[in-house]
């Protein structure tokens, strides 16, 4: 799976979780860029991403992820 494929699938997950149709993700996207992305939805998001890619984030990874780019890096290294 290319990095682009990961971004595509990740975008679908974001659209589902935030129930927002026009979400465009880049490496630099953070919680500040999406209104609905608060600490509660973050839990839903992480869980949904784990299901989508059939991976499990480590606790330290969840705590230290700074933006979508870092999330994609971790996904890329697992699948």
């Amino acid at each position: 799976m290319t990095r682009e494929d990961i971004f595509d699938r990740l975008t679908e997950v974001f659209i589902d979780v935030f129930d927002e149709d026009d979400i465009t993700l880049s490496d630099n996207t953070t919680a500040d860029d999406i209104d609905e992305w608060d600490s509660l939805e973050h839990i839903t998001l992480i869980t949904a991403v784990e299901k989508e890619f059939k991976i499990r984030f480590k606790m330290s990874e969840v705590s230290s992820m700074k933006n979508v780019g870092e999330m994609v890096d971790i996904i890329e290294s697992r699948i």
Partner: protein
Amino acid sequence: MNIFSYPFDSDYILKKKKRLKKTLLSNEVSRTKINIAVLGGSTTDDIIAVLELFLLNYEIEPYFYKSEYNQFWNDSIFHNQDLVNFNPDIIFIHTTSRNITEYIFDLSLSEETLEKNLKSQYLYFEEMWISLFEKYKCPIIQNNFELPFYRLMGNRDASSPHGKLNFITKLNQKFYDFAEKNDNFYINDINYLSSVYGISKWADPLYWYMYKYALSIDAIPEFSFNLANIVKSIYGKNKKMMVLDLDNTLWGGVIGDDGKEHIEIGNETPVSQAYSEFQSYIKAHKNLGILLSVCSKNDMSNALDGLSHPDNILKEDDFIKIKANWENKDINIAEICSEINLTSSSVVFIDDNPAEREIVYSQNNFISIPCIENVESYIETIDRNGYFELTTFSKDDLTRNDMYRANAERENLNKKFANYNDYLLSLNMKATIKNFDKISISRIAQLTNKSNQFNLTTKRYTESDMSIIMNDTENYITIYGKLSDKFGDNGIVSVVVGNKLNDELHIDLWLMSCRVLKRDMEFAMLDKLVSIARSLNISCIFGYYLRTSKNNMVHDLYEKFGFDLINKDEKENSSWKLDIKSYENKNNVIQVLEEDY
């Protein structure tokens, strides 16, 4: 099919909860609005969000108060103005084994100390429940405790008084003792739920360390579903009847093709044993007051032939109605419902054929239809759906099957009389109508919360609400009516609550069980109400009709009673007035007794 029936896709529900909520709210159905206070010993946000979905699916619209993180005890014990203002209808206490504070692992502790610790842990909770009952007078739902995912002493942890498993098991038993003694206290059995889910998956500690959830996020839909089933049951939204297919549902094979000798039921083969166990499971529901009917695409003679197989656990007379013909099943189910006066939303339809299920669902999505797949898993699929969650249980439930059967006989009799009044007189009806009393309050609340059709205002009351107005004789007239006839005792069938304001009486609640429609029981109730009102120097009675999607049958009840219309709004809600000075009794077919018949 309904995505909220078990087995549901938990991942999908979690991921799409925002969209699902919007969709549910956009359905045009009338919902019961209730306030639920959630007092948590760990994070509750997603539990609440998913609970909301399941309740909306049950046509209950919840509003939530959420305690601050781990403030469940303080919120319960001390005065809390926010919670007072919120005025909860139900309080849910979400505590788990993470909230156990009095257990210490120390093998040198004496039995007395261990016992003392257990007791002090229990009293910590009991004190809280009593305080909540006193302050809020509403039902409480309390989690029991799930078993921990590790065992310090291995298997011995279960039996040794020093073991945590042993401590939790004893503590749970104390909770159950309280639950059985207190009507408005319900256990949310997460001990069972976590076991069937798998304790190690349930307790995944990552969610505790990361987010302070005491259970895995993945388990939340099952948790919230279980909780929603208790709430819907308290609000009288349990199912009342199972409509069952025959071929490959109650026995293996097709009776019309294979013949009675070859259908699979009994003890001879693994498959026939599975069908037998399933039939036993279904039959046991009769004890819970659940009605059973058959709806099968078969010639009637074949269906009855199959049911007469000697190895069947379910016999022909276990069913209140048997429809065996080639009509669409949704039409047959609608007929069954109208013949015994049930709404289709109280029906569970059980059929192994996905096409039949789909047709019925597409014609009437109020009917619950579990997706049963293989006979060995029929029981689990039906059971986990919680259709018949038992929170209150009255003696009437035990005899409901007999009552409906007597109804069916009455219908046959009906045909022989040209004059309806003669028919009613021949029924030899006796009624007792009296003020609410303690012994009947549970059945009164149950009837009030499940009656939708013959119900003028569709107001809901918990048992504790009912007790409060029963005792407030300054301001309320509360009467209920029981009716028996030559076929049997119908038990409590009608409830009326009036609010006194000087010389006026305003009717808050007027409802009747559809089992006794067209029997003039409503007139007997009115006669009694007027006679009580007169004795209290009341001169006028005001009645109100609040339209819902289900109570059209009583839109003109007050007109039939001889009330004058004083107002009707654009939603067809109406108010009515009756001057009782010149009122004459209307019932002449029921003998009304002062004391119990």
